[in-house]
């Protein structure tokens, strides 16, 4: 009897049905699988390669939940260390990427709960540690247009912060460009349709608030 999760099977069906591809999405590529196997036998360098392959998506996932670079770094590190310790339990029912994303997400949510008060204070002061110096708008815009774009960006950030955690998490994960909806669904432990609705609802609320 197969022990593969339902979301994995659904994802496979969706991908196969949409693109006609037969490669299942719930299994790692041979290279990653070999690295996982080597790491499971205690090969640290192989695990280091897995870290290198996934550190970006893991860090951005943690950042989406925590919004501070320091916390995201700590949680990412903790997630990889936890993955190393639990690696013998990884059976390949999902991809290593999905597995590590679930680990980092759980750790990030735990930390977010612990630091809720601190987080609220940070929100109240609008003090974001995440870099946000990229200018919105055309590079050849006039100073007035740039000022308007900066103001819009500032208001959008605050509006995103004011979203409920469920809507904000889904939006930030989707907007990061690192995840498919199926991965987000697996990470958040929610159906794909729910994730899509949350993203759409987050955008709608932001549009209403920003009146754009």
């Amino acid at each position, binding site marked *: 009897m197969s022990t593969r999760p339902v979301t994995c099977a659904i994802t496979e069906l969706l991908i196969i049905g949409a693109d006609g591809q037969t490669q299942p999405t719930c299994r790692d590529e041979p290279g990653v699988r070999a690295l996982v196997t080597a790491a499971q036998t205690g090969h*640290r360098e192989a695990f280091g390669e897995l870290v290198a392959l996934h550190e970006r998506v893991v860090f951005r996932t943690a950042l989406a939940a925590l919004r501070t670079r320091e916390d995201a770094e700590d949680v990412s590190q903790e997630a990889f260390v936890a993955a190393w310790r639990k690696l013998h339990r990884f059976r390949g029912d999902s991809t290593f990427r999905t597995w590590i994303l679930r680990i980092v997400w759980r750790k990030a949510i735990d930390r977010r709960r612990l630091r809720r008060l601190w987080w609220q204070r940070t929100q109240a002061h609008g003090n974001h540690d995440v870099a946000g110096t990229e200018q919105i708008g055309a590079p050849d815009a006039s100073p007035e247009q740039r000022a308007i774009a900066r103001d819009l960006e500032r208001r959008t950030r605050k509006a995103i912060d004011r979203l409920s955690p469920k809507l904000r998490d889904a939006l930030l994960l989707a*907007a990061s460009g690192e995840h498919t909806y199926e991965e987000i669904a697996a990470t958040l432990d929610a159906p794909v349709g729910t994730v899509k609705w949350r993203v759409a609802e987050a*955008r709608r609320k932001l549009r209403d608030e920003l009146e*754009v």
Partner: protein
Amino acid sequence: MSQQHEADRAIDAIAAEMTSAHAPELRARVLEQLDGRRGGWLLPIGVSVAAIALAVGIAVHSHSAAPQAAATVARSDVRAATPLPPVHDSSPASTLSERSPQRTVATARAPIQGIEPAHPDLPALLPPSPLTISDIQPKPLEIRPLVTELLVVERIQIADEP
């Protein structure tokens, strides 16, 4: 519709920027932490084993304290009558199996010395008198016959008697 699409794109761009950062040296720090924890799991296990050993030791000691006290009382007469010869641990001829009982008994039968006073003017405390079994035996109950004195009642004299 196009305006909404543009707004969504702007929102997505800002949302993407909110998570657009990278963790420098994350791989190196993870591996360093793994190396640092190579023997780290031994520490909690060692502490746990030491704690369990300490708890067991205390329990064994507390259980053995009561029987040892009773045995000390029982042996006190023999102790006074037949002092044991001193144990020579440095003797090469003696084996561990020979020495161990003697050492144990000699340790248990160490003579009780008087306590020297800290101040020279104070008299030294005498060693406590040895406790024997007869000291702690209950005395037999003795029921003596109840002695009652005779009750003498003088005769009542009535003066107004005819």
